């Protein structure tokens, strides 16, 4: 078995472990390459099925192609697709694009807050009705106690300390100093009432592994990652006011892999196109402790 087989098997094991142990389980799907690989791995783990809801936090500032792609795949693969949003902040135009707050505060409101309440079930969730082809108010309002996330350890300093099964308290807070031990494929699957667990099946994958796997499995990834002749492509996806394409002429998966292995991105951080990370020293860590993915 090669190292992609190993990563794949480990992720499948973790997904199955989560499915076995958590009654109210969901998977976050950001439409980006990592969580799309995660979705593919779920189909591997569950032999072609995806027996759990996919949750997307819609900030309503996502690059429009992302939403189109989300719904196309959801209908095609018959996914149990759910989205949530921060309606209050959006209605009050309390956002960075509206000029009222800075980038980090905007992330906090439109993503972290929306996510927290969508997971808890105390804000409305919208579910894709496959019969009607559009979203309807979800009647399932129980909190999700297990949340599968596509975080990778190599993304950024704070993520390198995550566990595969990582507990969060009632406020979705992450206690970095006191994390559970993990050994011999045994994870924290027991949790006290009111707390929930974040599950990270992709923790050991690198950005390069992700692309190698997309190539091997021929996963239909969103085409924003590819240069369409303008010498630009996205390396990381997010909201359009804060995410910028990088200069690159990689037109397909093969060229991206080449670029990552030897080319100019070999030593530049993946999230360098994300403006919110740069606002203070520990931008992503601060966001993460408060529930950001």
């Amino acid at each position: 078995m090669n190292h992609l087989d190993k990563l794949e098997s480990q992720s499948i094991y973790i997904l199955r472990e989560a499915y076995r142990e958590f009654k109210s389980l969901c998977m976050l799907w950001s439409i980006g390459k990592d969580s799309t690989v995660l979705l593919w791995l779920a189909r591997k783990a569950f032999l072609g099925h995806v027996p759990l809801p996919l949750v997307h936090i819609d900030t309503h500032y996502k690059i429009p192609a992302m939403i189109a792609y989300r719904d196309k795949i959801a209908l095609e693969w018959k996914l149990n697709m759910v989205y949530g949003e921060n309606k209050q902040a959006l209605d009050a135009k309390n956002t960075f694009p509206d000029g009222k707050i800075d980038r980090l505060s905007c992330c906090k409101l439109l993503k972290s807050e929306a996510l927290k309440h969508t997971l808890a079930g105390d804000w409305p969730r919208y579910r894709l009705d496959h019969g009607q082809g559009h979203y309807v108010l979800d009647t399932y309002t129980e909190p999700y106690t297990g949340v599968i996330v596509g975080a990778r350890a190599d993304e950024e300093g704070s993520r390198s300390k995550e566990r595969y099964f990582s507990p969060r308290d009632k406020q979705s807070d992450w206690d970095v100093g006191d994390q559970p031990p993990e050994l011999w494929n045994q994870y924290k699957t027991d949790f006290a009432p009111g707390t929930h667990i974040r599950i990270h099946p992709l923790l050991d994958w690198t950005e390069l592994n992700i692309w190698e796997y997309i190539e091997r499995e021929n996963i239909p990834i969103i085409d924003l990652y590819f240069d369409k002749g303008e010498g630009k492509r996205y390396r990381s996806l997010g909201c359009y006011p804060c995410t910028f394409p990088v200069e690159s002429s990689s037109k397909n998966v093969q060229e991206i892999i080449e670029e990552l292995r030897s080319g100019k991105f070999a030593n530049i951080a993946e999230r360098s196109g994300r403006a919110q990370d740069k606002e203070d020293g520990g931008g992503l860590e601060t966001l993460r402790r408060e529930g950001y993915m």
Partner: protein
Amino acid sequence: MPLEQMNIVIVGHVDHGKSTLIGRLLADTGSLPEGKLEQVREMCKRSAKPFEYAFLLDALKDEQSQGITIDTARSFFNTEKRHYIIIDAPGHIEFLKNMITGAARAEAALLLIDVKEGVQENSRRHGFMMSFLGIKQIIVLVNKMDLVHYSQKAYDHVVSEYTAFLKEINLEPLAFVPIAAREGQNLIPYSNTEMSWYKGQSILELMDGLEKEKSQSFQPLRFPVQDIYKFTEEGDDRRIVVGTIETGSVSVGDEVVFYPSQKKSVIKTIEGFNLPSQKKIESGFATGFTLETQLYIKPGELMCKATETRALVGATFRANIFWMGKNPLIKNKRYKLKLGSARTSVYLKEIVSVLNAAELTQENKPEVERHEVAECIFQTLKPVAFDISSQIEATGRFVVIDDYEIAGGGIITDCIETESLLTDYVKSREFSWERSDISPFKRTEKFGQKPQFIVITGPRRVGKLALAKALEAELFLANKSVYFLGISNLLAGLGSDVRVAEDREEHIRRLGEMSHLFTDAGLLLISTISDLDDNEVKILKTLNAPNDLLVINVGESHFYEFPVDCLIEKDLPIYQAIQKIKELLYKKDILIEYYL
């Protein structure tokens, strides 16, 4: 071709230079993101701190303020040969569980010792834990050689002291290397400019010489059943047994046995998604199988091949355990055991000895405290399948859960034949039970019935509950002393401290315990429970002793060997089912016709 990947953990006593080593390794191998080194240097200048390579790793504010590594962090770098994932494990005793988490993921360990401070408590403890966790490749780095002017004498002193310790725990390191991490001495090839007396290899060369974990496919098959899937969407009718093959290999057509249930079947297909069809699969792969026969098994079983060495099945075993729990490991407390895919209740039966992993001293103690290692005997409520860890590692080790947390990790050293926990318990219960003056015979005479626990089982949604209630009503009207106990009663009342609904085992135990009260009082007790299996009936029978148990199965039976007392077809009208049960009750003299 993608590069090979390897996880390496760096351990050692606090302040012996782990983070510095990793920072310098990243810098010297050109693995840092552009501008990162300059950025950290700049940050140090601004805060008037001397630059340290360790700062490169301390991504978290928390950590920088305390100046010690709290948790394992991963960093990545490549050599021509491999892609390395370096796990930085904390050296402070407070964070032993984090060190273990990091080390358990590694294939090899670099153990650092500060030449000036010499062998410290955690140098020993970590060495011991590496061998405990099953890491066989260890390179010992004697660091901070610059502080002793690169003296060979100082180096030799540490080497001989630590070698003596490792000998006691039967561990042989691959190599000792003198280094000065801060100065970059001996990290990468040709970097040793100060220690001409050292002729060995640099860290990087030694790392590239480490061996990848060997494939376990030559071992007997061990496939812990993680789950059984039947997703019916899109007309899918496959019933798939899923899990990851720990050791061995298996092919379509192979006869397999599941332990502890001992059920047998034959592999029909190997299942996968977006995969070409396979006839054979080996260790390491997460996969799934369909079987030739409809077998009712539960997650937690261990699948082996009929023609190979079988796994051990038992309820009592000897193990070495290290304890990380906030509360000590004590007797007479119910813990949860996770072994392979099995989960069951476990009790500490005996502490043979407690070992101080740093001093290697043994003592007798009534409990095992945090950070201690002990040889113990454990007993489970129901039998589990396992191996001796020296034979098959993956199925010979386990973790113990206390209060939602993984509190201990253990390796099994022996299987012990003994009476089961329940038999022991029932014996002592019967011994200390104060008997009333009314004999069971008198009760039977008065009630016109023999006490009996009537269990109605079968798959979900086959009308068990309705049948149970109707049976109760029928017997009640016939003047029998009968009581229907719904499982929900248990949940709401006596069993309210049962944490999760899945905690079925504890449920069964309580049901058995309650049935004993009712039958001891001379009553007929009726209860329903879905999908009872052979072993669970055994538990109920043991606990209900000396009175009897009658098992009625509605619909498809999931018993393997246990002879059901009465089989009732799924759609049989209730009055007919009751008639059938009543006939049986008369036949068995449980209901007695009035005699004057």
